[in-house]
């Protein structure tokens, strides 16, 4: 790295919200043609720093230097003038506009005097960018018709179309398949050669070391350290992130033997994308469900739980036929901890107590007569058992952290005395510290005679936690891995067979 002046430098950046100091005196340098990895747990201030970079938030203190000159970045248009573009995890795309319209939102090409949209030039420019990134996407297609991965690509094309000099990528590979991730890395390399500076936010160690030129670690809003990849290793980075020496993830003792059959799925077909799946889960087991994005794992989980309609095949829970909707599954002792907590798992504007007993009112109050004090007792007992950090059972769930919200969802199912749990990406959006707690919780469930089917995109989690694992590909089971056969390579091998061919 030559000692040129950095293309962008932030000095002494601080930003606080009501009672929370999100960023505290953070300085950060970015050089041309460099991929600067930003590592940190959720709540470490990464997303706040990003929002400041793109002008969405104003800073409480600190200065910005663009190529050495002091500048002001207070609103999105400022960021644009300095060629800063941010790609968020929640896409900033409009469902019912076309791809071209999305890419040029706010920068539409207009006829000089008419002020009307120059549809043709917008379409051709969009096509050109898409071709450059060799994405097979029709610029006229309505966004809502594209898959998640394609939408991610449009998001990136949108940033590049602003011939951004500085690109901020927030966990871009979270929902990309390996093929697409490889293509993304190629493009990053191309951009590096063009001198584009990139801030790359991720917590996937493999990525950190494969494309990172420099790594900065944030913890609790403060910059903890800056390293070159060569100088450091995974363990040191994690300890910097978490602050205390902790073994990487929760290591599970596998002594429990499987007994009663909890789930039997026979040749299940569902219009949502399940094409004939058979599997089983026994009490005392944590069975992993691995596979790439779009391989149908969530669809399978929702079909088993009765959330989506089933076209053929059979599902049995604890030996009884699951032929109804979620209510039937719950009666049979099943539980679904959905992928998106906020939109499917919780009622954010209601209290913890209300959420915890939402699925067990019939059991707690068979007569229909609701006793608030009993409801409160049940909630407080579970809040204590799962050590949920909340001022009280009346606190609205929207004010809890990601990890605590997930605990509330789990308490909901414990209150419903479920004995077969389907976890869909249980640790998404949860910081490393809380992840370990979630896993110990899951392990506790299994030890107390429950069965768990766990969907996860983190291969390391599957390896460390599961007794057995199924790998799905295109709506089918590609293969089953026994305990000793499970490894990141074996999962990838089954998951991406045709991709590699």
């Amino acid at each position, binding site marked *: 790295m030559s000692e040129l002046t950095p293309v962008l430098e932030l000095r002494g950046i601080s930003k606080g919200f009501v009672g929370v100091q999100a960023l505290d005196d953070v300085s950060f340098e970015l050089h041309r043609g460099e991929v600067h990895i930003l590592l940190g747990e959720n709540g470490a201030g990464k997303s706040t720093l990003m929002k400041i970079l*793109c002008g*969405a938030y104003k800073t409480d203190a600190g200065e910005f230097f663009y190529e050495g000159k002091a500048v002001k970045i207070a*609103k*999105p*248009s400022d960021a*644009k003038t300095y060629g800063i573009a*941010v790609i*968020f995890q*929640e*896409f*900033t*795309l*409009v*469902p*019912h*506009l076309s791809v071209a*319209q*999305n890419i040029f*939102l*706010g*920068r*539409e090409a*207009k006829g000089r005097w008419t*002020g*009307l*949209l120059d*549809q*043709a030039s917008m379409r051709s420019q969009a096509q050109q960018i898409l071709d450059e990134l060799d994405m097979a996407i029709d610029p006229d297609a309505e966004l809502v018709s594209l898959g998640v991965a394609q939408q991610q690509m449009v998001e990136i094309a949108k940033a590049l179309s602003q011939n951004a000099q500085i690109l901020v990528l927030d966990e871009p590979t979270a929902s990309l398949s390996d093929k697409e991730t490889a293509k993304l890395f190629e493009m990053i390399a191309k951009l590096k050669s063009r001198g584009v500076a990139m801030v790359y936010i991720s917590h996937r160690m493999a990525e950190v070391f494969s494309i990172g030129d420099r790594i900065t670690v944030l913890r609790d809003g403060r910059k903890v350290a800056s390293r070159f990849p060569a100088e450091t290793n995974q363990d040191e980075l994690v300890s910097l992130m978490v602050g205390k020496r902790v073994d990487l993830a929760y290591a599970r003792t596998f002594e429990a033997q499987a007994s009663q059959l909890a789930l039997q799925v026979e040749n299940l077909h569902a219009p949502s994308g399940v094409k004939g799946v058979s599997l089983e889960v026994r009490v005392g087991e944590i069975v992993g469900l691995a596979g790439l994005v779009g391989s149908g794992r969530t669809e399978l989980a929702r079909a088993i739980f009765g959330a989506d309609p089933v076209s053929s095949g059979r599902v049995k829970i604890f030996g009884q036929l699951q032929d109804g909707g979620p209510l039937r599954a719950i009666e049979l002792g099943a539980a679904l901890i959905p992928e998106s907590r906020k939109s499917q798992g919780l009622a954010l504007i209601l209290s913890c107590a209300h959420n915890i007993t939402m699925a067990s009112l019939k059991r707690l109050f068979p007569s229909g007569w609701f006793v608030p004090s009993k409801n409160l007792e049940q909630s407080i007992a579970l809040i204590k058992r799962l050590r949920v950090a909340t001022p009280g059972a009346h606190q609205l769930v929207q004010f809890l952290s990601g990890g605590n919200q997930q605990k509330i969802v789990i308490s909901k199912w414990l209150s419903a005395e479920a004995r077969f749990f389907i976890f869909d990406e249980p640790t998404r959006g949860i910081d490393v510290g809380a992840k370990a707690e979630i896993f110990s919780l899951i392990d506790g469930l299994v030890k107390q005679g429950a069965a768990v089917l766990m969907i996860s995109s983190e291969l390391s989690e599957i390896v460390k936690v599961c007794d057995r694992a199924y790998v799905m590909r295109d709506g089918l089971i590609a293969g089953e891995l026994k305990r000793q056969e499970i490894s990141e390579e074996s999962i990838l091998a089954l998951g991406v067979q045709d991709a590699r061919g």
Partner: protein
Amino acid sequence: MRVADSSAGFIRQLQKGNSVGASLLLLVLCLLFTVFSENFTSAPNLINIVKQSTILLLLALPMTLIILSEGIDLSMGALLTLANVVLASLVIKFGVLWPAFLLVLILCAFFGWANGLIISKLHIPPFVATLGTLGIAQGGALLVTDGQSVVGIPPEILYFYSGEWMGMAMPFWIAIVACAVFHVLLSHTPWGNHVIALGGNREALTLAGIKADWVLISVYVLSGVMCAIAAVLLTARISSGHPTAALGMEFDAIAAVALGGTSFEKGKGWLWGTVIGVLAVGVLRNGLNLMGVPSAVQVAAIGILVILALMVDGLRDKQND
């Protein structure tokens, strides 16, 4: 290269079944009435339908944009009534239309601006804000006229409703121009994309460097402006100002927009669907009048039309979601 973007758009929207319900019903109604009442398809009657639907159309067009931006405007009917009585009084005082129309235009634009302000800056949900301003406009109309209707409109104002130009009735031309302007605004200007983005993903708009609040306010100002234009037509039609002339018309406009396939969330909608919705209601009322169907049945028929159309769209959504 595409031949004509809008025609492809038109067909693409139809294929997507955006407002199959309304188009189907419009077709069925036309066939039904052509058979059952001989002078339904006569030229004067068809012109009648267009003339009678124009005022509702002038409200339904901006209402489409408002609903596309995930808002709603309950104050339109009351604002149109206020504009009607103020326009009538001013026209009588000035003796000529234009200065009066200008003042009414400013009044309505200000009213729309106030709606937009209350919603964006005071963070009050559009339903509540416009329910409140509905009362304010309604009260204003009563206060201005003290309950009396305003009479003595100079005859040349009537030209806008009953006059003709190049063989077609004036309202017809006004309707055509309004549809064209709104089509261009919505599908051919950056502003149009911003309105859809406001409903689809407001965060995306702000991050694209556009002031979402201003887009929202501009939509409500446009709604006010259209009320002023509709007021000219209404005043010409009833040759007077009446303190309750158009109360409740906003609900008919919202129904026409929903009939046309514009949904209440996520900025999904189609301008021409609304035009079909307005025509469907106009044809129904006209046809039933021609057949001399008892009024009680007419009243129920409108409700059934709305529910039937939405059922068709509802079931279609169910299939493909």
